[in-house]
Every structure is written in C-alpha cells, then in structure tokens.
C-alpha cells in the first residue's frame, strides 16, 4: 500500500504555528523510512483554500491508497480534509488526520521532544490508516412530521406552530380534554385574563381551524414506546377507551342527565358529584363526555345498564365495547410537553394540609373560585360560610431543604391572583399574607403585586425560616396561623381559611416517560436540557425537544414560548425533501462469531442492537447506532466491529505510537 503523508507547517517556512516548533526537515527522514509511506509532502496552510487546492492536486497526481495529514485537531478539520480526499476520488475514511499542532507544537516546550512526539504520532497515524476501510455515508429519507406529547399551553403552541408550517402533527394527550392546567383555572396572572379565553383561539385552530398541516389528536392516550432517532422515530401510542365517540357525539349532555350513577368529583375537591358518564370539565374541549369505567356499573358490577345509550340521539356515539388500543406512527421529531404538578402539601406537616377542609392548596382554590367549580365560583368554607379572614401562606414547602429546595417561580404571582379573586368575589374579606421572599419579576407583575398588599383589607407579614409559620387546628375545628417573629411569643392569627402556595414539582411524569424516551431527568425530577441556558428546549437526545413545565417551573407565557421554540427546532432540523446523513462509523456484527450472549444489548444507549429470536444473532441498526463503540469493547467474542475504530486499527495505532 502507498501512504501519502502531508505535513502542514501552519504558516510559511519555519515561522508556522507548527514548523516554528517542529521542523519538517527533522521529521521527514523518520516518516519516509516507514514501510508503506510513498511520500512526505510539506504544505503551508493545509486548511486554507490554497492549501486544500494544493493537496487536492497532489493527491490527484499521486493517487495514494491511504492519506495521512499531520496538521491540527481532527475536531477542527477532519471534515475539511475528508472533503478534499472525496474530491480527489479517495474515500474520505481512508484519511487520518494527526494532530501535531494542539497536541504537540503548542504544548511541548522543548523542540527536540516535540519532534520526537510528532514522529511517534505520525507513525501511529500511518500504522492505523493502513487498517482503515472505505466507508459510505448513508443518506436517509426523513419524515418531516412531528409528535407532540401533552396538550397544555406548551404542547398546543408547538402543535399549532408545526401545523401552520404544513407539518403533520400527532398530538397525544393523556386526559380527555385539551388545554392542560389553565383550562381548569378561572383567571390568570399577571393581567387577570380569563384562562379558557386565552386558550380559546389556539384550541379553535387546533380543533376546527384550517391549518395547512393535519393534526391527529389522540385523547386519553399516551406514548408507550419509541424507537429510532431524529427523522425516523417509530412511536407506539396507547389509547384507553372513552366509550363516547369524539367524532359522533354532539355534546348534548342527555346521557349525563340519564346516567343513574353518581360518584364524588375529585376535580371539585369531592364537594360535588359527577355522573359515571360526564364531562371532564364543563366547557372543556372537545365538548364530549367520558364514560368512566371505574364508575359505570356495566364495568364495576357487570350490570346491563344502557341508560346513556338509550337516550343518546346520535347513533354510534356510545361505545360500550370500545377497548384499549395501541397504534404505531412514524414521526421525525418529538416535542415533550407533559407539564408538572404541585408538591404534596401533606408532607409539610406543620401546615396542616389534609387535617381540615378549609386548609386548601393553590390548586384547590383555583377550583373553589372557578365558575364551573363546586360552589359556582362563590368563595365558601367547607361548611358553606363566607370566610371573614383568609391566610395566604407563601413558600409552602418551597425554598425548604426538607421539601422543595428551589423557588418554583410562579407561586407569588399565583398568590396575588388569588388575593385579587378573593377580593372581587368576597369583598371585605380580610387577607393576611405570610410572605417569605417575594418573587414577581417581569414588566407586568407589578400591578397585581401592589394590589395584593396595598388594599384596605390586606396585611402582609414577613417570615424568615420555613418553620416560622405553623397552621393550628383546635379541638373545635377553629383555624389559626402561628407566626414566630423572633421576638417573644409567636403571633397567632385566627382565620376561617388557609391558602397554601404549593411549589411546582415535576411529579412522576417525566421520570416515567424518561424510561420510554430515553431522555434523562435531572436531580429535581424535571427533564434535563441539552444545555440549560443556550438550548433549554432541546433534550440531550437528538430530535426530542422539551417544552413547558416539564423542563422547569414557569408560567403560561414561558410555556407557550417554549412550545413555539421547540417547534422551531423541529422545523429547522427536519426539512421535507432533505435527507439526513448517517455517519458510517458505526458498529456491525459478524454473525458467524456472535454467540447470542446478549452482552451488547443493554450497553447500547440507543437500543440499536437486537438479537434475532430464531438465529440468536445480534445485529446493529446503523441508523440508531451513534458509533460510541461500547458494544465493540463489551463483546466477549470479538464479533462486533466498530467501523473506523476497528480492533486492528486501534492495536496498530497503540503498537506504532510506542515503537520506533
């Protein structure tokens, strides 16, 4: 074999960045005497246009079998010189770039030792290049469509943006309605807009609009399996039965009236009931009820009740026989927007949550104040009284090393909103706010902030340590908040209701889905980002994006912005008609050597390896394989070859770097 070696001086003569330390004349003899080296050619700026042209011309004239370029880091110019080789008609994988600049000339002070090291590294590169094989990069067709998981503000915005660009979108939502948390709220900070109204235009577009891209909405569904990578994901969507056809039902609600079975309605703090067939939420979209298998006597007792079917005016709307299904879809990108939840306040025992029905969380109070909530929007205690005094406790469990260590960013403004709602719904109610560190950033928060503390019935009390505030329940059911001020006995305030601002936490959702998506979560339980500052909506997995509160606590504005950003990433990475280049430096299995031991299967981070059930031979999906080489090192039979980093090439390199 004939190896052509090019030495880049990285500058003219002996003044180059490389030749200033390593005189090519001192290297030439040693390199030329290596077996298989056909020539040693010196260039000035190999990477510059002129240098590339010169190498190209030289390669074309001398047609070596293998090429070694001793220059700078392959991290900088491997692609450059691979292109030059390709232009010269030499397979780009037959070139080895040896780093004599960053790893030698710039770090070795003694020129003699630098020459020695450069020779060793070039010798190693020359030895390994003999074992390099021509490889062809595959160009893969991509699917430009996207999957969006979660139909809250973030997911809806992502779906809408993608569909507006003409992409097919599959929108998978676990619940029976769209909109995420805010459709359950009455009004939203910072401007006290009506929450359902804010989402109405987005929901309208998605459900009935004429967006250029089709949106396939899968309610009562989630994603249970994902294989593949950017441009080529195969996803499995599991749908549980709703028993009411979303397509056929007209939403008249007659079935609800006729249904004989009532159960407590958890969404309304179990203070009202719901029917076994009922709307998830009055006003929720799509306006189609759900038949709850956990409540309907056909399912709980095996009864033959047909009340809903009998009264339904639309044939085919009530589907008792509907069963759970799993469907497969191909998509190119995935936006994960599954939201978050609030901390379980019963863990913070000093605050009494769960011990008295008038100690409520910020989530409970959204429902207590909602027009479609248990009291039709009137603020009443559990026994139906109008409260005279309400305590609002900020940081209930947040900024607390024993509970939620971080500040969840939205609670203070939620508290201001709640104070505002209380005041407008029950004017004259005394509101005592126990604040710790008030967080109300941005250009819009200030009005609600002022309002919360400046009103005639508002009192603000500051506390410093999580344990300074306690909620007491006396034997007669009276409520009081005790506040240790640091001076003397704690101040005790008797109240009729306590509202606890619970921090937002990831909940089990991200961790559960992490197993399916192979996207990591971080120590807080939220999804980990590719880079928390520069790429917060990108997960570490190519082609999977994260948006909204499953990434970090944030408000609706943040969630919607992230949804748009995630869609933007998907749009720029997957352009219909463009192909995706797959690096050929992947792993392959030699079936005759494979013993079917499966050692390789779990070490692969991309589930790229399958073992055939019949032949018991492993095979690597080159599309999924990213070329890390872990399976190659793990295979006890030496059956897996890591292209471009084969055992032969590596052993030759190790041997040659050590032997003159």
């Amino acid at each position: 074999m004939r190896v052509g070696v090019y030495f880049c001086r990285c500058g003219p003569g002996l003044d180059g960045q490389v030749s200033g330390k390593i005189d090519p004349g001192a290297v030439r003899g040693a390199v030329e005497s290596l077996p298989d080296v056909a020539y040693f050619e010196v260039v000035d700026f190999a990477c510059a246009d002129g240098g590339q042209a010169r190498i190209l011309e030289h390669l074309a004239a001398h047609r070596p079998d293998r090429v070694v370029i001793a220059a700078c880091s392959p991290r900088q110019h491997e692609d450059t010189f691979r292109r030059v080789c390709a232009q010269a008609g030499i397979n780009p994988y037959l070139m080895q770039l040896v780093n004599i600049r960053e790893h030698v000339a710039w770090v070795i002070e003694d020129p003699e030792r630098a020459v020695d090291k450069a020779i060793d590294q070039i010798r190693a590169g020359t030895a390994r290049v003999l074992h390099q094989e021509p490889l062809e990069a595959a160009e893969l067709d991509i699917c430009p469509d996207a999957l969006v998981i979660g139909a809250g503000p973030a997911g809806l915005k992502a779906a809408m943006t993608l569909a507006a660009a003409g992409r097919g979108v599959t929108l998978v939502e676990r619940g029976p309605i769209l909109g995420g948390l805010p459709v359950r709220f009455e009004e939203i900070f910072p401007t006290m807009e009506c929450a359902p109204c804010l989402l109405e235009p987005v929901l309208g577009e998605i459900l009935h609009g004429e967006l250029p891209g089709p949106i396939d909405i899968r309610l009562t569904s989630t994603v249970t399996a994902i294989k593949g990578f950017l441009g080529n994901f195969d996803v499995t969507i599991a749908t549980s039965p709703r028993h009411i056809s979303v397509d056929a039902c007209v939403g008249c609600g007659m079935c609800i009236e006729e249904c004989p079975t009532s159960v407590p309605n958890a969404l309304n703090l179990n203070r009202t009931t719901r029917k076994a067939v009922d709307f998830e939420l009055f006003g929720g979209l799509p306006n189609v009820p759900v038949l709850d298998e956990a409540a309907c006597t056909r399912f709980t007792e095996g009864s033959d009740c047909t009340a809903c079917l009998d009264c339904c005016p639309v044939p085919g709307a009530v589907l008792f026989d509907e069963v759970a299904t799993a469907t497969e879809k191909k998509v190119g990108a995935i936006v994960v927007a599954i939201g978050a939840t609030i901390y379980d306040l019963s863990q913070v025992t000093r605050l009494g949550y769960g011990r008295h029905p008038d100690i409520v969380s910020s989530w409970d109070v959204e429902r207590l104040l909602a027009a479609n909530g248990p009291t039709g929007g009137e603020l009443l205690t559990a026994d139906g009284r109008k409260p005279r005094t309400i305590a609002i406790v900020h940081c209930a469990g947040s900024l607390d090393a024993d509970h939620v260590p971080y500040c969840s960013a939205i609670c203070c403004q939620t508290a201001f909103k709640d104070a505002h709602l209380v005041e407008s719904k029950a004017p004259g109610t005394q509101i005592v706010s126990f604040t710790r560190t008030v967080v109300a950033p941005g250009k819009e928060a200030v009005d609600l902030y002022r309002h919360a503390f400046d009103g005639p019935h508002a009192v603000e009390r500051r506390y410093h340590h999580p344990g300074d505030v306690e909620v007491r329940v006396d034997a007669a059911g009276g409520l009081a908040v005790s506040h240790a001020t640091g001076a003397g006995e704690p101040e005790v305030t008797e109240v009729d209701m306590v509202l606890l601002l619970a921090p937002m936490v990831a909940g089990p959702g991200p961790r559960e889905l992490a197993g399916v998506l192979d996207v990591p979560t971080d120590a807080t339980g939220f999804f980990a980002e590719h880079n928390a500052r520069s790429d917060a909506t990108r997960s570490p997995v190519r082609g999977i994006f994260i948006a909204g509160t499953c990434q970090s606590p944030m408000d609706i504005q943040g969630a919607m912005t992230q949804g748009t950003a995630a869609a933007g990433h998907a749009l720029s990475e997957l352009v219909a008609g463009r192909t995706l280049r797959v690096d050929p430096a992947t792993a392959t299995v030699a079936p005759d050597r494979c013993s079917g031991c499966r050692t390789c299967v779990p070490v692969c981070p991309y589930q790229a390896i399958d073992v055939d059930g019949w032949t018991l031979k492993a095979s690597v999906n080159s599309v999924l394989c990213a070329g890390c080489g872990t399976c190659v090192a793990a295979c006890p039979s030496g059956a897996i070859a890591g292209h471009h980093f084969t055992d032969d090439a590596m052993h030759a390199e190790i041997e040659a770097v050590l032997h003159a």
Partner: protein
Amino acid sequence: MTGTFEPTIVGFLCNWCSYAGADKAGAAGMPYPPNLRTIRVMCTGRIDAQFVLKAFAEGADGVLILGCHPGDCHYKEQNYRALGRHRLLLRVLEQHGIERQRCRFDFVSAAEAAEFAAVVGEMTADIRQLGPVNLRAVGADAQ
C-alpha cells in the same frame, strides 16, 4: 530514584470532552510534559481492556484514560461503563505487578484545559517516581 527516567504514557482520550480539553490546552498554550502520546476514541466506552494491556505489553509505562464528566458523556453514560471496566482492569494489572498509579482514569471536560495539563503533569511525575514497568507477565497476556 531514577532521576533521568522519562516514562512514555499512552493517553486514550474521548473525542467529545477530553480530546477537546487537550485541544484547548494547546490553544491556550498550556505546556505539559512531552511524555504523553494521544490516541483518540469517540468515547471511553470503546476502550477495550485489551487496548490497555496491549499498551503495557508494547512498552508503555503508564496509560491514561480520560473521558467526559459523569452525566456529560456524549453517548449518555458510557463513561460509567468505562469506569467500571477500569476498576476491574486495575485488579488484573495489579496481579501482573503493574501498580495502579500506572493506569489512571479521570474526567476532563472540553473546557478544562488547565485540568488536562495538570493531570498529565501529575501522572508523568508519579510514573517518574515508579520507574519503568516490569512487562514480563503482561506480554503473554495481551497477545
């Protein structure tokens, strides 16, 4: 003490962090001892125990394995696997009389130019102290 002994150290560097860290040491002009010879792998997960044994058999006085910090591996968590293999490898090496200081595993990020230079400096100093390796027993193994 072998005052004039200059060890040869083979460094296996993962492309995404440690090789980049070494590049950065170069770009920042941070000198380190000339004793290191570098071999690039895409990830520490590719490093077969045979590579290390081979390096010792061929006369290396030390082997340095550098990868991404925990949680930063470009291929998710292969650096943990490499770390596990390294632990086993140390036992094998010790059975052959190769001191554990001769085979060092460490994490160096793409940003840690100074750390890279420091690790190479420390390792070189450690092995200067130890002197040349006794390779009789290993030679047979790696073939």
